[in-house]
C-alpha cells in the first residue's frame, strides 16, 4: 500500500540516520540536468574543493535561459549573458559533460529536451537547478528543482540530503470540455488550493482526465506543480508514457527495453495507498483559465471578472489583491474578455512543445493578429520541436498571421535574454509565472493556455476559445 512517491523514495534511499520518517535521508540521483544560470558557482566550488563529478553520464547540460531567440550566427551580443553561456561550455568541455551547445539542433529548454531525448525515464530521480524540474514527474519520476549548493552536492556525491515530503493526490475525473487543456487544469488546481497549497507535499495527479492527457499535457501539468507550492508533481506510468519513450535516443533498446518496461509498469500507486491529502476536481467543470494578478493563484475563468478586493474580509489578502490590481493596471469587476493586450508569448517549459504549437496554429490559421498587438512571439521549446513544426508548416501559419517565429529557449518567460515586456505592457503568456517584473520590469502577465493566447492575439483581447470555430 505504497503511493508512487513512496516507491520512488524507497527505491532511491541510500542512507538514513533513523527510521523516523521525518529524519534526513540520503537520496540517490539518476539524472542531473544542468543549465547556465544556476551551475557556474557550483562548478567553481567543486573545483576549489578539488572534487570531480561523481558520475558524468548522469549529467546532461544545455544553455537555455540566456540564449537569443533571434539570429544566432553572431553569437550572444550581451557580454554578461555570453560569459555565463561560455562558462557552461567551458565547464562541460573541461569535465567531459554531455552538452547540447547553442547551435546544436537538439538545444532547447532543459525541461523540453530531457523528455524529448529519452534522458528522462520512469523511475528516475531527476534534478536540475530550476524549479520547473517538476515537469519530468510526468514520466513517473521523482523530479524536483534544487538550489546551486545542491547542484554542487549532486555533482560531488550523486546524492541529496532531504526529508520525505507528505503526499497529496489531485484527482481530476471526467472529460475535459472542447478547447480545455492541461494548462487550464493546472491553473484551476492552483486557483483551488493556492500557490502554497502544495507546500511540503509531493503531488500525484490521478483520475480519468489525467489518464486521457498526452505526455505533453502531463508535462504541462507537472510543470505547474511548483506553482501550487509542490516541489514535485507526478503521474503514474501507463501505455501513454511507454509509447512516448520508445525509440528516443537515450531510451533503452532491445532486451533492455523489455526489462525496463516491465519495471516501469510497477510505477503507480497501489490501489489502497493512503495519501496525506486528497483534492478532487470535476474535469467537466473546468473552463478556460486566465490569471488577473501577480500570483498564479490569482486566476479566474474566461467568462469571469476581475475580483473586487472590497469583498475580501482578510486584511492581508485584501491588501495583496489591491497591490496586484494596481500593478496590473486593472479595475475590479472588469470582465476578463474586455482586457486588451499588447504582446503575446507562446513558449516556455510549460507550453512550447509540438502539441502546444499545433493548438495555437489551429486557432490562428488564415487569420491575422489584431492591430493593437505590438508583438506576438512563438518560441519553440527545442530545435527539434522547431524543425517538426516547420515540417508541418506551422511556422508559415504563424508568420502569415503576423507572429514572429523564433529560435528555442526560455525567452520571454523570464526575460533574461532580449525578449521582454516594456513597463506597462500587457501580455497573454503561455508561461508559468505572472510575478511582478517576471517578463520585464513593469510588465503585466496573464497566464493562459496556448489556444487562449492564440485566440487573444487574433482578437486583441481575451476571448473564449470554446466559442471559436474553424
Amino acid at each position, binding site marked *: 500500500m505504497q503511493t508512487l512517491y513512496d516507491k520512488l523514495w524507497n527505491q532511491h534511499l*541510500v542512507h538514513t540516520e533513523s527510521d523516523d520518517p521525518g529524519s*534526513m535521508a*540520503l537520496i*540517490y540521483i539518476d539524472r542531473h540536468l544542468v543549465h547556465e*544560470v*544556476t551551475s557556474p*558557482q557550483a562548478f*567553481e566550488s567543486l573545483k576549489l*574543493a578539488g572534487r570531480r563529478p*561523481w558520475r558524468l553520464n548522469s549529467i546532461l547540460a544545455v544553455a537555455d*535561459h*540566456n540564449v537569443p531567440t533571434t539570429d544566432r550566427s553572431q553569437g550572444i551580443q*550581451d557580454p*554578461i*549573458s555570453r*560569459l*555565463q553561456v561560455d562558462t557552461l561550455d567551458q565547464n562541460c568541455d573541461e569535465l567531459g559533460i554531455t552538452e547540447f551547445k547553442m547551435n546544436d539542433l537538439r538545444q532547447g529548454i532543459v525541461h523540453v529536451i530531457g523528455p524529448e531525448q529519452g534522458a528522462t*525515464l520512469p*523511475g528516475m530521480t531527476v534534478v536540475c*537547478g*530550476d*524549479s520547473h524540474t517538476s515537469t519530468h514527474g510526468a514520466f513517473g519520476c521523482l523530479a*524536483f*528543482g*534544487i*538550489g*546551486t*549548493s*545542491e547542484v554542487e*552536492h549532486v555533482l*560531488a*556525491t*550523486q*546524492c541529496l*540530503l532531504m526529508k520525505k*515530503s507528505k503526499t497529496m493526490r489531485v484527482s481530476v475525473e471526467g472529460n475535459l470540455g472542447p478547447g480545455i487543456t492541461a494548462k487550464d487544469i493546472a491553473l484551476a488546481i492552483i486557483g483551488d488550493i493556492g*500557490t*502554497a497549497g502544495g*507546500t*511540503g507535499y509531493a503531488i500525484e495527479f490521478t483520475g480519468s482526465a489525467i489518464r486521457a492527457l498526452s505526455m505533453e499535457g502531463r508535462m504541462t501539468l507537472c510543470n505547474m506543480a511548483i506553482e501550487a*507550492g*509542490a*516541489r514535485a508533481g507526478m503521474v503514474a506510468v501507463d501505455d501513454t508514457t511507454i509509447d512516448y519513450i520508445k525509440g528516443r535516443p*537515450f531510451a*533503452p533498446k532491445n532486451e*533492455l*527495453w523489455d*526489462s*525496463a518496461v516491465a519495471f516501469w509498469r510497477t510505477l503507480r500507486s497501489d490501489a489502497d495507498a493512503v495519501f496525506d491529502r486528497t483534492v478532487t476536481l470535476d474535469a467537466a467543470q473546468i473552463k478556460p483559465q486566465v490569471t488577473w494578478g501577480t*500570483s498564479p493563484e490569482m486566476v479566474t475563468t474566461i467568462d469571469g471578472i476581475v475580483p473586487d478586493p472590497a469583498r475580501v474580509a482578510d486584511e*492581508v489578502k485584501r491588501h495583496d489583491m489591491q497591490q496586484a490590481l494596481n500593478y496590473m493596471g486593472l479595475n475590479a469587476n472588469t470582465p476578463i474578455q474586455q482586457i486588451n493586450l499588447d504582446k503575446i508569448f507562446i513558449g516556455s517549459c510549460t507550453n512550447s512543445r509540438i502539441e502546444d504549437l499545433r493548438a495555437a496554429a489551429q486557432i490562428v490559421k488564415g487569420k491575422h493578429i489584431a492591430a493593437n498587438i505590438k508583438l506576438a512571439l512563438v518560441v519553440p521549446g527545442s530545435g527539434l520541436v522547431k524543425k517538426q513544426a516547420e515540417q508541418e508548416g506551422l511556422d508559415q501559419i504563424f508568420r502569415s498571421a503576423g507572429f514572429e517565429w523564433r529560435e528555442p529557449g526560455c525567452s520571454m518567460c*523570464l*526575460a*533574461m535574454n532580449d525578449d521582454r515586456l516594456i513597463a506597462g505592457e500587457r501580455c497573454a503568456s503561455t508561461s508559468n*509565472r505572472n*510575478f*511582478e*517584473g*517576471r517578463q520585464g*520590469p513593469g510588465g503585466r502577465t496573464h497566464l493562459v493556455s496556448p489556444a487562449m493566447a492564440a485566440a487573444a492575439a487574433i482578437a486583441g483581447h481575451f476571448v473564449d476559445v470554446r466559442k471559436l470555430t474553424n
Partner: protein
Amino acid sequence: MEKFETITALVAPMDRANIDTDAIIPKQFLKSIKRTGFGQNLFDEWRYLDHGEPGMDSSQRKLNPAFVLNLPRYQGVQILLARANFGCGSSREHAPWSLQDYGFRVIVAPSFADIFFNNCYKIGLLPVVLDAAILDYLFEEVKSTEGYRLTVDLQNQKVISPKREEFTFEIDIFRKQCLLNGLDDIGLTLQHAEKINQFEQKRRNEQPWLFM
C-alpha cells in the same frame, strides 16, 4: 559555512504574502557567475526608483524612500519578518544569497516555499517558522517600536522579544547541528561514499538502462 550563533539584532517588517524569488532578486542579476555581491540588488525593483542592470553602481542610484528597507529606522537590519509563503517561485539560490549579502541572518515567517527554505540552510541563513498569530503580533510590535530587536537563540530554538516573551520554533535536528557547527553537507555525505558506491552498483545491475 559560518557557524550560526545566537544573535540579537534589529528587525524589519515585509508586510506582504507570497513574496517571490523574482521580487527578492530580479533575473537580470542572475547572469553573474559569482556567489557574492547580490545584496545591493536585493528587492531591486521595489528598492530603487530606476531600473537596475548588472554592473550599475548602486550607490549612485535613486532609492525609493517609501520602501521599508530604505527607512532610516531599519538600517543595519539582520532579521526580516515576512508573511506566508515567503520565497515562492524559482529555485535560484541567488535569493538567499542576496538576503545574506545584504546582512540578513534570520527570516521569520509563518511559512516558506520549499526550495527557498531548503536553500537557506545550505548557506547558513536561518528560516524560522512561527504561527501566523505570533507574526501578527511581532509585525505590530516592530512597526510601533523604533529600534525593535529580537534575539534568535538557535541552540534553544527560541525567538525572544525585548519584553522577554519567548516563542519556540521547530527545526530539524540535522539542520540545526549543521548550522550550529558550520558543517559542510558535501563533506558529511562523502563519509557515506562507500554506501553510495554499493547502492549505485546494485542499481547498475538491476536497471542498467539508467547508466548509459
